[in-house]
Structure formats: C-alpha cells, structure tokens
C-alpha cells in the first residue's frame, strides 16, 4: 500500500504506468519497480530456484535475492533483473520468472510438497540407475526446472561503451563515508573518482537519521556533492557500480546510462577501466536476516529494507508490521513505521534486555518490546498474515500469535568487504559486532607491495553514523578532520544464528539461509553431518551463497550455522573466497565496442579495394584478407581456381603478394646474425642475389621460410610468410636484444611500406617490358637475382623468384603506388591474356612443383630434414638456431615421416587430413599409421588428384602403394616424387 504522506524519493505529481506480467499498474517517479509493486499491494514478485516457493522482496537494494524479473521485451529483454534496483519509467514492462503457468499458480511448486525428500545434494545420491536415464530423463527434467529468466532469443541491439581512466583515489560508495573520503582526498589536490551504484547520494544516512555538522545528514550530503562537483579533477557518477578491484589497482565500474530512461540514443552501459592509485571501499554493509521458521514468507523483510520502503517511497506491505531483532538498530525501523502511521504490535528482541536509547524511544512511542523473545513461525499462504512468538532460547513453543502484514527482521550487519577481499585482503572476526571486518594488518597489495584498498564506514565495521563518517574522512586523508556527527548510542547485539535456538529438525527445515537457492539450516547441518566440513564443501554441496546475490545475505549466517554444527569457532571455519564481480556485470559491457565491423582489426592490402571491385572471394590469413580466387559470373570456386592456374601456366597471372613479410637487416654483424637465424648460409650470398632460407626454433622445428636478398654489403632483405612477418621480426629482435646484444645489427619491418606483386607466367617478361624502365632480360636479371629501378615511372625493386615454377617476377613498390602498378600491369597484360589469381591457385601451383607451404607441410613438429630440404641447411656452419635440437635422438631417427608425392591409383583427390594405414595395432589398440597427407589438390595442370604427404622413410619407398583412410573411405595412392610438374624446371629457365 502507498502511504498518504512521506517518501523522500518519490514525486507524487508524476504518476508512471508500468506493466508487471499481464497487468498494467501505476507507480510514481522515483519509485523502484519493487516499491511501485508494494505500493500496488503486490508483494509476490518471484519464485525460488529449487522448490519454487513464493517470494517477495526481502531487501531494497542490490543484495536482493528474490525479486528478480525479466525487464523489457523482445531483443531488449533482460533476465534476472532486481526489481529493487530497477528505476520506474513510463511504459516499463516486466515479467516474473521461473514459474509455470503463472506467478500466483506455479505447478513447479510441487517440488515444495516433497521438499523433505529433496535435501541438499539429493541428486548426488540418486538418478544413478539406469545409466541412460540421467542424460535422457532426469537431467532434462532438472534443467527445465532450473535456471531463472528466459534466455534472450535475438542479438542485443544496444551498444556498450568502454573508457580507460586514471586517478589517485577511487572511492566506491556515495554514502556519507564515501563522500567524506572523496572530500578529504580531493581537498589534498588528488585526482578523485567517486562512484555510487544508486541513483542518489547519501546511502543509508538520510533514512537512518542522526545529525551531521549539526543538521540533517541529507543537507550535508547535498553540500558535499556540490563541493566535489565544483572541483576540476573530481569525477562523480551515480548509477555506477564498482564491480571489481583487480591486481595492481585495476578497477572495473559498470555505469548504467539509459536503463532508467527506458532506452536512449547513446550506449546503454559504460564499462570504466580504471587504474587507481588506491581504492576506498565505502560500499556499506548488508543487514543479515534471522533464521526463524517461515522466514522466507513474502512480507518478511530486512528491517532496514522495510525502513527504506516506508521512508524513501512511502510504501509498506500493510498497516501492521512486527519487528524481530537481536540489536538496537532495528528499533529505528519500528520508530520509522510508527512515524509513518504503521502499527507495530510488538518488537521481538532475542536479547534478555533492551534498555538503550532506541528501545527506550520505542517504548516511549508506546511500542511493546518483548525481550528474550523470538519467532516460532509465520502464518499465511503467499504472504505473511501473522507471526508466532516464542521464547528465543526455547524449542519453539508458541506463546502468542500476532496478526501482521510484514515482519522486519534484523540479525545484525555484515560489512561489504568484497572490494577489499577480491584482490586478496584478509578478514578478521569481530566478536562484538559478530561480523567479519577487514584486517588492516593484511590489506590487498599493489605493484610495489603497498596497500591498495582502504575500507571506510560500515564497510570497515564502523556502523554508527559518527564513526562511519569519521572513518571515511580518515580514509580520504589521514590528516583530515571529520565533520561532527551524532547518533543514538546502541547496545551490543546478541549473535542469533538459529531462532529459536532450541528448535528441532522439523523447524530447522523451515529456516531459510539462502532464499533464492532454497538452502535451509537443516541443509547446512546435513552437509556437516555427511562430512562436507570445509566451508567450500558446504557451499558447493548445498549451493549456499551460489545464487545471483552470491551470498550477500546468506554467507555469514550459513557459516555460523556450519560452525555450530561442527562445534568450531566461526573464524576457524572461515569464509568462502570473494570473487569478482561485486554485483553481476552485463556481458555486453565487458565485450565493449568490439562488435561487427570492429570486432577485430581487418588488415587490408594496398590492393584490397581493387580485389573487392573485381569479385574476389576472400580467405582470412591471420587478420589479413587475401583473394582466394576471382570467380566469374556463374563460375564455381573450383572452376575459377582451375582457370587461374591454367592461365598462369599458359599465359600470365598476377598475384597480390603484399602480405608477405619484408624485413630489412642491416649492420656490420648482419651476415653473422642471419647465419645463426637461418639454417643456410646468408653471409656468403653475393650482393644482387637471392637465396631461399629456412628458420627453425631452438627445438629444431621449421617455423618459417622465405627468400632472402642481399641488398648491399651490410644489408639484407628477408621475406617471410604472411603470418611470419611480425612473428619473425619479433623473433629476430629477441635474439639481438637478449642473446647477442653486442652484435651491431638493426632490423626494420617494411611489410606495410611496400606493395608486392607477383607477375607470373610465360608472358611475365613481356608484361614488365611493356611497362618499360628496367631491363628484365634473362641476362640482366637471371633467376634468383634482383634489380632496382623504375617500372612505369614507379621506383621498384624486382626479384626474379618463383613459387610456381613459371617465369616469375615479384615487384615491390611503395604501398601508396601499388594500385597504380597493378593497373598498369593489367592494362599492359591485356593483350597477353593476363588474369589475377588468388591464394588457392598459388597453393595448387606450388604443390604441383612440390614446394612446401608453412602451415600445411609443417605443423610445429616437422624439421627441414623431413621435407627433403637438407640442401637448405649449411653443413659447414658450426651452429644455427635449431641445430642442437635437430641432433636429439627423436629428430635424428631414420624412421621419421618424410615428404613425398602421392598419386591415387584412380586419379581421385585424397581427402584432406587422411592418414596412411599401417600394419596392425599399437599397444593401446589403435590402428597403426605410417604417414599422413599434408596437402591434397586437384591439379588442373595434370588433370588429376595430387598430394604431398609425410610417410615413414617415404623417400626410400618410391613406387610403393599405400592405403589412406579418411571420411570413412579408403584410397590407394602410390609414393612418387613431390615434383609433379616440370621436374627439369624448364618453364622458368627462359
């Protein structure tokens, strides 16, 4: 119901329409969905996870475990949203979850009837037989019953923003402690960022009362915010939750930008990625429920939550509320209720006496205070209508039944230590407050081993207003003076973990600890009985604290019950680990801007647009896109590849080779260096000449290959594979910087500076001659030579090298003139029948010639000797990277699989990845193999299938026929030379 007066956060002049399930209702601006529903008399907001019991809100903030809804519809529907944090807006639509067919009537609630047979971990003890039943019967049923909200169906249409930020002091929490900390720090000139998860500043203080600087806390809060806002190096944000404090002061904050407006033009949420010099954790504390029978019935709330609903939003479940407590703070709720005109028939206080100022004020207000009293049970279907009182120390004999619409419970408070504990801060048990508090002697530490988190206010265990605000100021600046503050004195609480303390098993099976996951006192005791005695075992066995609130309400109560069951002290039982995030973070915000076009960088060659304009189909090569082939109208890819191969072999082909790595190596020691990096000798390469080179890692395995050209006496140009460009440059620098740092060598990666075009085929020379400017005759530019000059007016370096076996030139020009050269070649090549060809034609042609391809013939386990590339290894060199590795027994083994050509007897193409079937089986019963296919293609040139493969002692077994197995078939193929086409190399010798 909505109270006639009050409500500090609502605007009674601005009604808002919203829909919950199929009913339209009206709330007020400033409401949360939860307060609006309570205002409409709706307490039932959800169903529990396991037993599907009716659930109402138990809290009023981010710790809420029960009131979870699906917010929004269609592609913008978001499951598991806390109604207690959801700001109401015009037209809001929310749906209840985890119920069928309806929230009020949920058939799954049948689980509740048999709940005594579904204790913690029951599923470990049954569903064991018959074997197949788990997957096909039991598990599907459990999966259907489990889960909370529905899975989103469509792609998220919203955008998410991320920003990096840096500050000296980051304050988490905009209550009075956080504000005092931020003020104190900012006044020292520090760069300060202050984040508050709620839409408004001040935290609990404006609700709880007391005075700051002689006035209402709200007044001081407003002044503090105003002062901070005026400072240039202070950043203030509400609706921004500090989700995680990671190592070395890396802080994640999720800011809600448009949710409260029901959407907007900009990003929906922003993930702040902040490096903070230090963090002040002022996130407050969570009130603890009391574990009494029936404490999960809708209408039973935390005392502070009911206080919030009445004071902030002027709503309450009904005209009468009973308060049950073990401390003085809950009396504030009783007084607030009374002030709001809600009757409080009784305050049940478990303590033998309650004589502090607050209890006295309650009595003075005419409220009955029953000390030594607890609750034996609650009455009501779907919502509480009465409570049964009992002796707090007894077995639960009902002394009195009192009608009420709500129960405000308080079991004391637990500081929100998450941001302290996430990066490794330790806790100590505070006996007086019966709570875990940060242990200042064991703080989380940063890069220099310095403390990086300080806790302030309630998060540090300073629960009373004066201590709270003072510890805040100290945390901001040890020298700062705190504003004077006053609040009523409070008598110590009496730890109460089970109410009544003498309750028997039947009652203990009705005392909820984890409301969402339906974990009860009896479950924790069962876990202890069965030997799941570590707090982690108990958590995992019962699922205590594993709900979406991650145990904010249940953990301490649960481990206290466990400690009692084990007859251990609570600190000896310890806590479970606090893991990020503090509250769940939207995955979209973590993924950030990287969607669609900017999901990953896409590298374009200087000729990319030309390829696109001429119908290239692409192949990803690392982050590059390279033309796979250029299909013509109604031409298949395979046909296009065949055409490109044949045309290149018969006339003229152009290949964009710009992605190949081009690394300059220069200096007095460059030759000596390259002799170590490559298996072959590069220092002996004459200027003007090219040589094919292999690179191995220290293991001896082949990692890259390419043509090396000696540009000058002290300068070499090393070509690498496309994938190798960066990798090999880093590899070279690694050795130069960390091993041979006295060698005088510079390297420079020029890959992006140069466009490189392969001009290939019988007419290649004619094409270049047509451009004019350089003599590319056989005499002037023999095979494996290079020359520098000008082609078509473009400064160019021309390498006469070939990966196809054809007459072939690779022309390198500045990247910004690549298109110009390409188009000139296309024009000049027109009469010569020029066609561009793609990577697949390149692969086919090199395979026809038996040239290996890094990544096909190699896979990180292959050495050059396996590939018949011994000729590229200098025998004279005493050392090169990989030489020692290749000397090890397994790599020198004559039985290694080595490269051969393979031709199927029927001319077909061997399936990719096929293995050569050997004789018999190995010790593990696996079919023996004696080789595998590494490359397999249809060769347009030979008009049949060809393949390269690695076969045990392959080169010694020419002519043998082997059986290959893949895709359920067997294929017979003969071992042949890997050079299928033009073995004499006539084509390029012109």
């Amino acid at each position, binding site marked *: 119901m909505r109270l006639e007066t009050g409500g500090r956060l609502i605007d009674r002049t601005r009604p808002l329409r919203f829909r919950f399930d199929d009913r339209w209702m009206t709330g007020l601006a400033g409401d949360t969905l939860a307060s609006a529903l309570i205002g409409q008399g709706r307490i039932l907001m959800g169903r529990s996870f396991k037993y599907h019991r009716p659930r109402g809100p138990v809290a009023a903030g981010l710790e809420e475990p029960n009131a979870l809804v699906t917010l929004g519809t269609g592609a913008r529907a978001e499951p*598991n949203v806390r109604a207690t944090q959801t700001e109401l807006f015009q037209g809001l639509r929310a749906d209840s979850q985890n119920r069928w067919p309806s929230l009020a009537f949920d058939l799954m609630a049948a689980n509740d009837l048999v709940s*005594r047979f579904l*204790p913690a971990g*029951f599923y*470990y*003890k*049954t569903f064991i037989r018959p074997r197949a039943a788990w997957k096909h019967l039991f*598990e599907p049923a*459990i999966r259907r019953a*489990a*889960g*909370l*909200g*529905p*899975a*989103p*169906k469509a*792609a*998220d249409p919203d955008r998410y923003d991320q920003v990096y930020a840096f500050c000296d002091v980051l304050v988490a929490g905009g209550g009075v402690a956080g504000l005092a900390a931020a003020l104190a720090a900012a006044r020292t000139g520090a760069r300060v960022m202050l984040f508050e998860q709620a839409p408004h500043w001040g935290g609990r203080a404006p609700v709880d009362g007391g005075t700051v600087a002689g006035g209402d806390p709200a007044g001081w809060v407003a002044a503090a915010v105003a002062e901070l806002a005026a400072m240039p190096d202070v950043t203030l944000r509400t609706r921004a939750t500090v989700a995680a404090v*990671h190592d070395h002061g*890396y802080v994640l904050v999720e800011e809600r930008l448009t949710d409260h407006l029901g959407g907007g033009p900009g990003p929906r949420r922003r993930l702040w990625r902040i490096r903070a010099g230090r963090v002040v954790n002022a996130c407050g504390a969570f009130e603890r429920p009391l574990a009494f029978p029936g404490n999960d019935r809708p209408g039973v709330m935390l005392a502070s939550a009911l206080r919030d609903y009445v004071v902030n939003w002027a709503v309450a479940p009904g005209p009468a509320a009973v308060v049950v407590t073990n401390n003085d703070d809950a009396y504030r709720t009783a007084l607030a209720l009374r002030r709001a005109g809600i009757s409080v028939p009784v305050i049940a206080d478990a303590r033998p006496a309650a004589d502090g100022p607050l209890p006295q004020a309650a009595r003075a207000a005419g409220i009955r205070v029953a000390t030594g009293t607890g609750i034996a049970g609650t009455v009501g279907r779907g919502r509480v209508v009465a409570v049964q009182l009992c002796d707090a120390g007894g077995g639960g004999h009902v002394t009195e039944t009192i009608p009420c619409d709500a129960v405000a419970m308080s079991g004391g408070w637990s500081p929100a230590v998450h941001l302290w504990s996430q990066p490794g801060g330790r806790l100590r048990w505070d006996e007086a407050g019966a709570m875990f508090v940060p242990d200042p002697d064991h703080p989380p530490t940063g890069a220099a081993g310095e403390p990086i988190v300080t806790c302030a206010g309630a998060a540090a265990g300073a629960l009373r207003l004066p201590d709270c605000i003072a510890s805040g100021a100290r945390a901001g600046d040890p020298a700062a003076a705190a504003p004077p503050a006053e609040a009523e004195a409070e008598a110590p609480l009496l730890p109460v973990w089970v109410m009544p303390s003498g309750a028997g098993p*039947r009652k203990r*099976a009705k005392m909820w600890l984890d409301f969402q996951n339906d974990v009860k006192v009896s479950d924790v005791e069962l876990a202890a*009985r*069965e*030997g*799941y005695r*570590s707090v982690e075992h108990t958590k995992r066995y019962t699922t205590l604290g594993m709900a*979406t609130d991650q145990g904010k309400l249940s953990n301490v109560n649960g481990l206290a019950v466990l400690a009692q069951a084990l007859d251990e002290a609570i600190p000896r039982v310890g806590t479970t680990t606090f*893991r*990020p*995030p503090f509250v*769940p*973070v*939207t*995955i979209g915000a*973590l*993924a*950030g801007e*990287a*969607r*669609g076009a900017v999901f990953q960088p896409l590298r374009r060659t200087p000729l990319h647009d030309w390829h696109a304009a001429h119908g290239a189909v692409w192949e*990803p090569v690392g982050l590059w896109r390279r033309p796979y082939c250029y299909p013509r109208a109604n031409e298949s890819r395979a046909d296009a590849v065949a055409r490109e191969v044949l045309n290149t072999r018969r006339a003229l082909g152009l290949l964009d080779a710009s992605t190949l790595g081009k690394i300059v190596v220069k200096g007095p020691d460059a030759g000596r260096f390259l002799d170590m990096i490559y298996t072959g000798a590069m220092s002996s390469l004459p200027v003007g000449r090219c040589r094919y080179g292999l690179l191995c890692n220290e*293991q001896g395995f082949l990692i890259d290959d390419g043509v090396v050209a000696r540009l000058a006496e002290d300068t070499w140009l090393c070509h690498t594979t496309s994938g190798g460009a960066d990798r090999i440059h880093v590899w070279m620098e690694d050795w130069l910087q960390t091993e041979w740092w006295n060698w005088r060598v510079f390297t420079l990666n020029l890959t992006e500076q140069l466009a490189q075009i392969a001009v290939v085929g019988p007419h290649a020379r004619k094409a270049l001659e047509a451009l004019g400017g350089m003599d590319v005759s056989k005499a002037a530019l023999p095979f494996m030579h290079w020359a520098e000059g000008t082609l078509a007016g473009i400064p160019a370096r021309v390498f006469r090298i070939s990966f196809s076996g054809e007459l072939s030139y690779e022309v390198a020009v500045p990247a910004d003139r690549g298109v110009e050269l390409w188009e000139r070649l296309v024009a000049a090549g027109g009469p010569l029948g020029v066609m561009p060809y793609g990577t697949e034609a390149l692969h086919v042609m090199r395979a026809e010639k038996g040239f290996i391809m890094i*990544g096909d013939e190699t896979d*990180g386990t292959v050495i050059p000797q396996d590939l018949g590339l011994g000729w590229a290894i200098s025998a004279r060199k005493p050392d090169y990277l990989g030489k020692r590795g290749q000397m090890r*027994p*397994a790599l020198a083994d004559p039985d290694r699989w080595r490269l051969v050509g393979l031709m199927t007897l029927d001319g077909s193409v061997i*399936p*990719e*990845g*096929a293995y050569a079937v050997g004789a018999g089986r190995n*010790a*593990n019963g*696996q*079919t023996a*193999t004696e080789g*595998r296919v590494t490359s397999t293609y249809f060769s347009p040139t030979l008009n049949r299938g060809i393949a390269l493969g690695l076969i045990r002692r392959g080169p010694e077994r020419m002519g043998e026929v082997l059986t290959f*197995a*893949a895709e359920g078939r067997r294929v017979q193929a003969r071992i042949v030379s890997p050079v299928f086409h033009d073995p004499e190399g006539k084509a390029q010798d012109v």
Partner: protein
Amino acid sequence: MSRYSVFAIVREGLRHHTGWPRAWASPEPRARYDAIVVGAGGHGLATAYYLGRNHGITDVAVLEKGWLGGGNTGRNTTIIRSNYLQDPSAAIYEKSRALYETLSQELNYNVMFSPRGVMMLAQTEHEVRGYRRTAAANALQGVETEFIGPRRVKELCPIMNIDGPRYPVLGALWQPRGGTGRHDAVAWGYARACSQMGMHIIENCAVTGITVEGGQVRGVDTTRGPIGCDRLGLVVAGHSSQLADMAGFRLPIESLCLQALVSEPIKPCMDVVVMANTVHGYMSQSDKGEMVIGGGTDGFNNYTQRGSHHHIEETLRALVETFPMLSRLKMLRQWGGIVDMTGDRSPLISKTPVGGIFVNCGWGTGGFKAIPGSGWAMAELMAKGEPGPLAAEFSMFRFREGRFIDESVAAGVAH
C-alpha cells in the same frame, strides 16, 4: 557405509536425514603407508581408487594441503572429450571418457556425466583442414568423431550465429559422446569410494619435505608429522614444481593462471558444448542454467588464482560475436586456477630421477576430462613401478629425446 539410492533418500527423508553417514572419514595419519598420494584432487583420488580397485593396494594415504577437491578439480569448466589428434593423447583421454560413462554406477555417486556432445568450430580454412585431419586420426584411434557442416552445427546449437560476418562457421569437429560432468561430485565420489576401501584421506595436511635416502624415497614430512612410504605419487597440479623441488629435481613445467566465469542462470538454451579456437573461447550451459565460459591462460607465471582481466574481455568479445544473445546476460562470477604447462602442452605420468617417486601433472588446461584415465594409468605406474601402455609416452624424459606429444597442432584453445 550406506548405499545411495532413491530408497535411502526416502528412508532418510522420513527421519529428517539424521541418519546419513560421513561420505568419507577424516582419520589421523598413521606412521607409514604402502603408498602415499599427495594431492586429494580428482587425479590424486582417482589414482588412489584404482590402486585399490585394479591392484589391490589399499594401504594408501591421500594427503591434501587444503580441502579435498579444492584445486583445479573444483574450478574447471567440466568439459569431457577425447577428440585429440596424437595417438597417446587420444588413447588416454578416450580411456578416461569411457570410464566416465559408467562412473556414477561404479562409485554409487552421481557424477552427472552428460554426453551432450562437444563441437570444436572450424572458422578458417586452416581449421577445417586441421579438424578433418583430427577426424581422420580419431577414426583410426577408435574415437567416435566426425567433421560436420555449418547446417548441422546450427541444428545442434541454434543460439549460434554461424554467418560471421568475420568468422563464418565452416564446420566443426563433433564428438557426440563428449560432454560434461559435475566436477565436485567426481572428487567426492572417488573420496567416498577410497574411504570405503579403508584408505586414509587426510585434509589440511601439507607436505613440507620429502625424505630421500640413496636415491630412494622413504617418506614425507607434513604439517601433521612425518609419514613413511616407499611409493610416493605427486599429483598436485599447480604446485608440481614445489613438490619436485622438495625431492630435488626440476620438471618441464610452468604454472600459469587459467580463468573461467559463469553467467547468471537462465532457462535451457544450449544442449551442447562449443569450443571456438579462432576466437578463443568455449561455452556450455550447466544444469543450474549458468553459461559456463572459459578462455585462454595468462602468459606469465602466477600462483595467485587471480588472472588478468583482459583475457576475460577477449573471451567474451569472441563469444558475443558467435553467440549474440549473450550480450544481455550478466557475468555472475569469475575465478582462476593454476595450471601446469609442459613443454609440449601434454601431461606427465612418469617415473622421476628419485626411486619410488612418481609424478602425474602437466594436464595444462584440460585435466578434468582426464581424471579417471589419468588415475588408472598412474595407479598402474605406482603399482608396477613401470608405466603401462597408456602412460608409456608421457614420460618426463621425452623432452630430452625430443619426443613430443604436441596437441597445439590441432587444438590451441584452452579446455
């Protein structure tokens, strides 16, 4: 010791479950045992279990520094598969997978093995070739896998975006009998079975030293006193190097942090396990409804169980691109575990330079799926003093000879 069954549940339900016995005993350590296994994680407990079951050795203590199953067994993403490329890997992972099929019945403890199927997406031509090769190898290894096309992928996992645009799904390596299990239950089930054989599982008992005389192990020093033995198995993923150091030798291992996370629970939307190597992430949905997500490891040595957050962001970026519906879900919890990385990313089940000491470690990011097979092979090694065929190739001395079992060839993604 009572058997678990629906009848036992009903019986206990009628007396408020007051009659359940301890799942495993917590005895005081004796002065010596025939064999000691250090590490009460899945691998250690499975080793002990098969020592008793297969080799009749039940005078065994399993020493655990913290709480049973608290290492990587309790913090992994529970994927079970055996679609490995190399023969030795395929052999031990398939043995393991096969043992999982009947583990609940064997242990009388529901470990919830769920062969829902595992697919590894091929999103580049290179991956297509790689997974076709694996499928060909698996067929000869007796591992049931097939390479399936994009349409089939979409049928099996409707929430997936197979159209890219950046990395359209070109196919997948599909293992229908791969799946998931309940990680804690595996440790608890083995512990209960070991305890029923009279073995001693001793928690909160850290090994502080290893006694070696004349190159032969004599026992261990622990925080609960010295304990003698002639056979010592070190099965302590994440701390293998520390234990080896106590015994005076080094291992080819580096300890890295691997992270995982779960979303808030949602209603069932994904019935298979999906691994995507190119974009580096993998995901399944737990019986609770959480999307269970993992990615790659940090590149630097780390014992903190707290990884670097950018890996989480990279993994989620990748998965949101492949599963656009993920974007509006929330990350509920993230955590890290310390994994042993060997020189070839394959495990060690091996004799050591010290007589009587055996190591079982180096499972990298894929240990959970191997638990039963690893225990089976390790038990054989400890019982006979020599490796059987399953363990033969996993000697720690293979690196000296250059005999690698390199799986990065096919699967680079963590699992």
